[in-house]
């Protein structure tokens, strides 16, 4: 699963720490998400999308592994 977190975070002028605080996770989690080294839970994906005022599928791109 790819994501566009970094892109939308830059658009909204948010740091990794800001986003982490907004969705209630540690900064490392955002780092790993942006690097594609971790797939978030549905709740976290929903929370992140909500911060950017977008739908989950706009932020997260699902691919068959």
């Amino acid at each position, binding site marked *: 699963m790819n994501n566009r977190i970094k892109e939308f975070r830059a658009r909204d002028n948010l740091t990794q720490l800001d986003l982490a605080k907004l969705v209630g996770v540690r900064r490392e989690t955002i780092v790993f998400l942006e690097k*594609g080294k*971790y797939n978030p839970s549905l709740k976290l994906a929903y929370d992140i999308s909500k911060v950017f005022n977008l739908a989950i599928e706009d932020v997260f791109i699902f691919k068959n592994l």
Partner: protein
Amino acid sequence: MKKSIITFIIILIIIAGLWIFIPTQIFDKNDFLHSSFVLVLIIVLGLWVLYKRFISFKNGEPAEDELSKLVLQKSVSLSYYISLYLWLIVSYFSNRLNFETDQLIGYGIIGMAFIFVGSWAYFSLKGVDPKNL
């Protein structure tokens, strides 16, 4: 943060207990150095974990989240798996080397602790690969 304080108190109690009992049993200089090395490692690791928790607390981040829980879960499962081989090796050498049972169990437990720390560091730095879930 409350959890970190409890963990810190437990670590302090364990260390205090070890310091009380070790000097009555250790007469050999090498054994004392060996025990001190293990104790220093435990203290350094404990302080490092506390420092990281403190930084997270200062930044307003939660002490634990879904990734840190997953990392811990993966570390525990991997270290358990590797520890099975460790105990196989320990049992193989127990008949061939001149070690006492207490020593073997002690080395085995220390080995398990090192394996756990190693696997935790591995997953903490590398992340949990979504393809391996």
